[in-house]
């Protein structure tokens, strides 16, 4: 399955760029990537990351109710500190406007 995030065609330069999300079985993914390489398409892995600036974060917890996967959560209700589990993050970006201190950002 694929999801096109961005498409840009530059006819003067004779090139085009597609930013895509690919999902499926690893075996099929590798076959697909191999095919594209063979027909001359340049492949560059791209990671979309939500980053938390630890200096800006005050652990207020305003973000946790907006995170759909619980990546941002309070693990220990005694310390009340907000943990950020990157494994659970799907980079939806909902935390970005929710943070009053601009601690959350999206980077490609």
């Amino acid at each position: 399955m694929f999801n096109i995030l961005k498409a840009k065609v530059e006819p003067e330069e004779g090139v085009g760029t597609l930013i895509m999300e690919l999902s499926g079985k690893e075996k099929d993914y590798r076959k697909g990537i191999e095919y594209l390489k063979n027909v001359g398409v340049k492949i560059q892995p791209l990671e979309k990351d939500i980053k938390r600036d630890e200096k800006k974060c005050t652990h207020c917890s305003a973000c946790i109710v907006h995170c759909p996967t619980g990546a941002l959560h309070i693990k220990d209700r005694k310390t009340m500190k907000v943990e950020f589990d990157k494994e659970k993050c799907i980079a939806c970006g909902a935390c970005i406007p929710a943070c009053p201190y601009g601690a959350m950002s999206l980077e490609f």
Partner: protein
Amino acid sequence: MRIIKAKSYLNTNNRKKAKMKKTYEEINKKIKNKEAVVLTAEEFIELVDKKGIKKATKEVDVVTTATFGPMCSSGAFINLGHTNPKMKIKKAWLNDVPAYAGLAAVDIYIGATEIQENDAGNTNRKGSFKYGGGHVIQDLIAGKDIKLRAESYGTDCYPRKRIEKWINIKEINEAYLCNPRNCYQNYNIAVNKSKKTIYTYMGILKPNMGNATYCSAGQLSPLLKDPYYKTIGIGTKVWIGGTHGYVYWYGTQHNPFIKRNKKGCPIGGAGTLALIGNLKEMNPEYIRGTSMYGYGATLTLGIGIPIPILSEETTKYAALKDEDLEAPIVDYSYDYPNCKTKTLGTKNYKELKSGIIEINGKEVPTASLSSYPKAREIAKILKKEISKAKFLLNKPIEKLPLRKKR
């Protein structure tokens, strides 16, 4: 001889001693000698649970309270010093954020919630409000150069009409935080009963009560631990933004005349403090420009206030716990903007901090705007300062009003 009455004065003396009040002078003497017993509000709660009110009153001298949250009614007075030739500033901007200049020639006031001149606000779509007065104040404290732009109509003694220059906190004259309303004694729990997401000063509120936001340090919060203002008053020395300041007046909207629960906790925003402190001594770690998406810019402040343990009554209130302190649930989609006083019930801070509350049979996740970990940090910092005799307590010059002021 017939004995009609006999009374032992020994017992009466003991009873009098137990109720005897300590004084600020006695406590300060102990602080100066580094003999004072100082606990944070959380530590004090544990001690009172373990040893009871009498023993805790005898053993402990000071309890430190603290809070770290957005406090919109804040701003700083700045005296810029004169240019050559001199100028009587009529309008001023700091990093394109308008500052009020209607006092004297070079005195200005930068308000926490003022936004940049070219910020469209919520006109076309919900604004991000990434830079406002609060951010100017944070940048100033951090030692960053700030762009000053000023205009004037010119006078014979102050002929200059325009100026644009960089200023820095090291070069300007006085700069002090002068906040008309800080340290709200309790606040609302905000929910959204409508079908659309709303953007408020209590954060982003999801439809159909999708989330609830509260804003208080609960059992660490200053005025919640001195609910009848017995120790915190005008003239009380406070820890503010990393330095020492004072309560200079009761804050705007100070309203002690509000329904209280059995523990004396007002159920809703009640008392407030007007605070002052030297910007030049502050630390940007504890005073932050803040952006509320779709609402506006503001300033988040870290404040610590010590409570002298003068009597068993002081102990009783200073030992109040999260479960004793409750706040009202208010709908911010219709009731709050339309001045409706009804609430959807109350919840205490223990319930709020659990992460989920129940409202009319629905489970609603909770979040805070006020940082409890930061409040805890500040309470510990203040405890350390007092223990090292770097902070002495002030007896208020005047008590905060306990009745509604006209």
